């Protein structure tokens, strides 16, 4: 048996006995970022497919949530910084090796663009709307002419944003729970699913909701598949990986993950959505609320548990 203790020094708050440097702000941001990525992705996707008329909530109304979520998320990120007045240093350099630098620049682009997206639909959403200033009217006209090009840009940015929320964590080789390349696609899929849930909740159009529910079922299935693979990878991995997985397989995060994230946040809403597609009456708000709750829980659990895992020496 090996026992290690600090004979002198350390016992630093939030580092010992186990790391807890990132609090609620980071998982909340990862949730809001993924949700915004989902909303923007599907809005762009249906514009590219030429389905603006059939999917009005997806393309227009729900996109109002995206800039709000992004600004709130950025607020949470700023709150988390401990040297706040120096935040602008992020924008003095581009560091390709740092996922956080990628994220900072992506957010710099996608946040104002998401606001411009909403603005470009003001005339459709509010009949009689006018920008009053000629220059703005010209921009509006230009955007409406170049709608598909704009949608492609947003589609790519949304994918980068969604993947980045996972890669941010997976790039940390010191935290075995995070250090798996599945985290990028897993967070992307989960973010898209929460985005779909938000749009479904807002949509008043039965046909649109049906399309969205079908899509969401696919995303939930892929997410479950990726979660199974995540744990298969851990169990086949080195000791630090199996230690990390043990937190979820009998350890302290077992209930919060399998009951709240997987059962209540993925399987249960998937069953409800399927029942609705078969014609049963399900309250419109119920599956989206469960999916959003599951997505939020997932990020809290992953951030908290990941910080506990470490190399053993």
């Amino acid at each position: 048996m090996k026992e290690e203790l600090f004979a002198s020094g350390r016992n630093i708050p939030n580092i010992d006995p186990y790391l807890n440097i990132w609090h609620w702000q980071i998982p909340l941001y990862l949730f809001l970022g993924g949700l915004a990525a989902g909303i923007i992705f599907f809005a762009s996707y249906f514009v590219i497919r030429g389905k603006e008329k059939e999917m009005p909530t997806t393309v227009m109304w729900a996109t109002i949530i995206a800039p709000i979520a992004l600004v709130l998320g950025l607020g949470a990120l700023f709150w988390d910084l401990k040297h706040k007045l120096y935040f602008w240093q992020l924008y003095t350099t581009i560091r390709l090796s740092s996922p956080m630098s990628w994220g900072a620049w992506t957010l710099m682009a996608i946040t104002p663009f998401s606001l411009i997206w909403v603005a470009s639909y003001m005339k459709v959403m509010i009949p009689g709307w006018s920008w009053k200033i000629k220059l703005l009217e010209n921009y509006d006209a230009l955007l409406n002419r170049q709608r598909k090009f704009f949608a492609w840009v947003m589609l790519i940015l949304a994918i980068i944003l969604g993947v980045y929320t996972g890669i941010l964590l997976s790039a940390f080789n010191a935290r075995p729970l995070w250090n798996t390349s599945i985290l990028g696609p897993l967070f992307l899929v989960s973010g898209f699913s929460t985005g779909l849930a938000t749009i479904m909740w807002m949509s008043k159009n039965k046909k649109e909701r049906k399309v969205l529910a079908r899509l969401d079922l696919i995303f939930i299935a892929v997410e479950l598949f990726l979660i199974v693979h995540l744990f298969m990878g851990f169990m086949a991995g080195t000791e630090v990986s199996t230690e990390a997985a043990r937190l979820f397989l009998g350890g302290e995060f077992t209930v919060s993950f399998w009951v709240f994230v997987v059962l209540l946040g993925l399987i249960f809403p998937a069953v409800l959505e399927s029942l609705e597609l078969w014609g049963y009456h399900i309250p419109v708000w119920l599956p989206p609320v469960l999916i959003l709750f599951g997505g939020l829980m997932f990020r809290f659990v992953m951030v908290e548990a990941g910080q506990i895992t470490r190399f053993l020496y």
Partner: protein
Amino acid sequence: MRYAMAIDTKKCVGCGDCVVACQTENNVPHGYCRDWIVESVDGTYPSLSLEFRSERCNHCDNSPCVRCCPTGASHIAEGGIVLVTPHECIGCGACIESCPYDARYPHPEGYVDKCTFCIHRVEKGQNPACVEVCPTQCLHFGDLDDPNSEVSLALKDRKWKVLAPEAGTKPQLYFLT
């Protein structure tokens, strides 16, 4: 030039002088530290083995903290010493998350702080404060590229290990065993 440190675990008695010397030399805020001592006991009574390790930043050759830093505040200075520039650090915590040795901490003033191998002393040709005060002289500092440096000589005819080599960081603290 490649600065490194060798720590003789057979000589270390865990007195904590290195910790105090560092805190004094570098004005480390109360309740924090840049180096620390781990007491590691292995085995079952009565066959026990004891090891003391004076640990600090490993000034890794492949440093994940420098890679993850979004602003470039964490950087590699001459001789491979990993440093943080306080006025470039935003306090995001990415480097703290990325360190397998938990060698970094958030300074109460907001930026992230860590061992500097006492670069301000090394530049003057002196040893780091911890090395200077060690009463058992179990710490050896110097340039690995110089075969006659104290650290090269210490590593020459002793067995040594590094911590968590599987993390792939190429750490530069060598523990003589």
